């Protein structure tokens, strides 16, 4: 970092274009004392326990049934708690964890290539651009080993070597081979493992499962999370559920961008409603743009499809050196006219550099330098080649087919091109959100009794998540963290303290009913999808891969205007007595229309670039993200103050005791 750049940051950060109040809330992360390696063991021993006979007196409400939710619900039920689990899909097996393709990291060191718990911890902190909490990440690395054991015991069919041992592959941001996988369907197999355990507990009567049931609000009694209000998506019935603790395992908010790799139903409602009831939202601007997705083909597209990062093990990414070659088919472009830009810019990691870096490099090649390939959409060619010809020549088609067959098939189905013969075309797309509700070491939010697990929390990935680490986090939180930490809270609570007749439930129930009636009463002209699409465009243009002060400030104004129009003119047809798909979508879009503004505010306040958050004003001379550790080495936690007020910022300083803060280098 040169002196002149440092000075310009200091000058910039002093004049913030947006006014936001600072909160005096002290965020206590409750990180245990002692050496890093001993914190978790010590914490488990120091935590209070609930005795086996008393566990059944406590009811835990688990919202969401993905890796985090299903593993938490089944494990808590196995321990003896009384569990209710909710999902909006028709079955808990459908949660979007199922779509994760490439794999799950674990510090097993089966390859004897120098891996260790500390190395996985180090890679994750560095990959997250030094914006995650050390103690949580170390625990994640520690638990990673147990996850693989647990999943094998459940009958998850991981890939094997001929000798019967587990196979591994490499993923971005690591120089060891620590990723376990089940063909290109690792998320599916891990989720079905968790789902099978959950099913066993449902059969045993220890979990009551509520499918096609969406949480619409959180109920607080005397400041503690004691229940939720849901809507039955089949018949519209609004219901109250009382519990002694609430676990939100509701995934990420990538669909705020409309086009993303998320499932259509993924939404921010549960976490955003909790935010409006007082939960702090951590780092909402940290979103991950995944480098290997199939490019956008047209205006009526509803979703973007990911091609697993594992493809970067054998595929080489390139664009033509000359702009005039961009319309040629790849076979016509000779080797010397190809620019393997990741290998050129990042020789040490090459095609396996972290996601944020690979995505931004592709954006530079296409958007800034005009060297993108593929069909022109809205006047631009947004795509780079992912070329397997060298690997196929060296290893043979059979080996490549064995590793990636289903991904190649999926690509061929969507694009009608054969990736064995011609390079794939890929472009970055919104994939994962590192931000989420703020939680302490126990995974509890600042609302006592409200726990947040998996992608829904902000905890472990800092400003960028490494590949194959989301599955690891969801399962670590659900199988191994929450069973220990929830007891520490419940042990101090009188069971079944607040029945659903309590005034707090009545009030929230009333709010939910009123909101539904309000949506149905607008009877406007414009569909919820059209609003969602318009919001997505604002977010992608101004709060996507590159952000700027001016763009973000403008985006906030545009979102406010769009939101005002929504509440005047959205068309929600039908009634609340039957399945109503427009009502479901309208409710989710309404929350995205508020949440998008919060994301832009967070991005605007963070006058630095880090990981997936890239502010054009803050970059090094060669275009890398430029952090500002003096001013921004903290987690930003936003607190709701009322509908027409700017949220207040509380800061959790990030203390690095075990890793030296450094500028990331993958060169």
């Amino acid at each position: 970092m040169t002196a002149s750049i440092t000075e310009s940051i200091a000058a910039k950060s002093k004049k913030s274009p947006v006014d936001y109040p600072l909160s005096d809330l002290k965020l206590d992360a409750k990180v245990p004392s002692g050496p890093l390696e001993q914190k978790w063991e010590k914490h488990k021993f120091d935590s209070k326990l609930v005795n086996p006979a008393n566990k059944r007196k406590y009811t835990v409400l688990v919202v969401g049934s993905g890796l985090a939710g299903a593993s938490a619900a089944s494990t808590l039920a196995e321990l003896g708690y009384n569990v209710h689990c909710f999902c909006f899909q028709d079955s808990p097996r459908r949660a979007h964890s199922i779509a994760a393709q490439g794999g799950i990291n674990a510090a097993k060191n089966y390859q004897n290539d120098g891996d260790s718990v500390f190395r996985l911890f180090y890679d994750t902190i560095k990959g997250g651009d030094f914006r995650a909490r050390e103690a949580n990440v170390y625990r994640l690395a520690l638990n990673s080993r147990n996850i693989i054991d647990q999943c094998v015991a459940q009958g998850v069919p991981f890939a094997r070597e001929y000798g019967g041992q587990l196979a591994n592959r490499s993923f971005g941001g690591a120089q060891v081979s620590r990723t376990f996988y089940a063909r290109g369907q690792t998320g599916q197999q891990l989720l079905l493992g968790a789902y099978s355990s959950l099913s066993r507990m449902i059969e045993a009567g220890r979990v009551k499962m509520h499918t096609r049931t969406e949480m619409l609000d959180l109920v607080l009694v005397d400041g503690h999370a004691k229940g939720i209000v849901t809507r039955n998506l089949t018949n519209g019935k609004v219901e109250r559920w009382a519990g002694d603790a609430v676990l939100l395992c509701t995934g990420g908010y990538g669909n705020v961008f409309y086009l993303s790799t998320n499932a259509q139903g993924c939404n921010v409602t549960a976490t955003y409603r909790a935010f409006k009831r007082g939960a702090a939202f951590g780092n909402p601007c940290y979103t991950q743009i995944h480098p290997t997705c199939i490019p956008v083909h047209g205006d009526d597209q509803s979703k973007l499809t990911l091609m697993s990062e594992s493809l970067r093990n054998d595929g080489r990414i390139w664009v033509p050196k000359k702009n005039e070659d961009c319309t040629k088919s790849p076979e016509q472009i000779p080797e010397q006219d190809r620019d393997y830009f990741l290998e050129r810019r990042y020789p040490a990691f090459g095609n396996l550099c972290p996601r944020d870096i690979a995505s931004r490099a592709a954006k530079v090649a296409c958007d800034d330098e005009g060297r993108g390939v593929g069909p022109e959409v809205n006047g631009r060619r947004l795509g780079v080649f992912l070329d397997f010809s060298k690997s196929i020549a060296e290893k043979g088609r059979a080996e490549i087919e064995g590793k990636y067959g289903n991904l190649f098939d999926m690509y061929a189905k969507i694009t009608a091109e054969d990736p064995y013969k011609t390079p794939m075309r890929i472009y970055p797309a919104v994939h994962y959100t590192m931000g989420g509700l703020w939680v302490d070491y126990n995974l509890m939010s600042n609302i006592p009794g409200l726990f947040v697990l998996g992608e829904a929390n902000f905890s472990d990935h800092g400003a960028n998540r490494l590949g194959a680490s989301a599955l690891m986090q969801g399962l670590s939180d659900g199988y191994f963290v929450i069973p220990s930490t929830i007891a520490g809270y419940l042990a101090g609570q009188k069971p079944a303290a607040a029945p659903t007749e309590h005034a707090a439930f009545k009030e929230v129930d009333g709010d939910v009913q009123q909101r539904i009636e309000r949506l149905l009463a607008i009877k406007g002209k414009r569909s919820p999808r059209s609003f969602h699409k318009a919001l997505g465009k604002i977010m992608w243009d101004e709060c996507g891969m590159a952000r700027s002060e001016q763009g973000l400030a403008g985006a906030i104004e545009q979102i406010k205007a769009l939101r005002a129009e929504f509440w005047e003119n959205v068309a929600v047809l039908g009634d609340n007595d039957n399945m109503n798909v427009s009502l479901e979508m309208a409710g989710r879009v309404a929350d995205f229309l508020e949440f998008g503004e919060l994301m832009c505010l967070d991005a605007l306040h963070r006058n630095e670039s880090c990981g997936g958050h890239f502010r054009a004003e803050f970059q090094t001379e060669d275009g890398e993200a430029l952090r500002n550790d003096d001013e921004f080495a903290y987690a930003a936690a936003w607190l709701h103050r009322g509908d027409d007020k700017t949220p207040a910022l509380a800061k959790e300083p990030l203390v690095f005791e075990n890793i030296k803060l450094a500028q990331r280098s993958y060169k």
Partner: protein
Amino acid sequence: MADGSPKTMTLTLHVWRQKNARAAGAFQTYKATGVSPDQSFLEMLDLVNEDLIGRGQEPIAFDHDCREGICGMCSLMINGEPHGPERGTTTCQLHMRHFHDGDEIVIEPWRARAFPVVRDLVVDRGAFDRLIQAGGYVSVNAGGAPDANSVPIPKKEADLAMDAAACIGCGACVAACPNASAMLFVGAKMSQLRHLPQGKPEQTKRALNMLNRADKEGFGACRNHFECEAACPKEIPRRVMAEAFRDYVTAAVNRDDG
């Protein structure tokens, strides 16, 4: 994908509309215009729905979520075929380039006693969850599992398990079967677990419990038509049903009642 702007199509759709489980349903006819060959079948339905909303009519309800062929949420009988005409493809991955301008398309929900209609094209597949609850798991609690590499599993067995485990639980097999049998679905889960050492201890008990539950849920008996195999978007092989029968018979002969 063709370069430039591809020609669009106009289609006539006959869609099953039904307000709820108790109401009578009927086909309604709609025009889908401006359909691009690069759109997925569900994106085509999105367009129709946007048009319906614009005209003040309630959109068609259909199940969908991941739109990348893995969650198993999408369904649809398309011209009498589950997930439409493409082999090994879910409806969300079926692209309109497989249709022609002017085509008529009949779109219905899954038809099976065990899958009652919820609304329009949406059915209740809760019966599949209850089949898994009857025994589609290894009875192991979290914590205390031995090291993952302590029991080697031959690659061939792991691959056979994975072939069966690829099932997405969409219900196409049931919809395709003249008897609405769930044998391919049940067989897939049983096969996955019988090829792994972890699943062996409960192998026959699992067969008995899952197949008895299938009867109770109203699924029909398997008569080896193999329509299920042809319709399966994940191409689960018929051998999983043979394995399931074998385990069931073994359990019955041994009077293994769990």
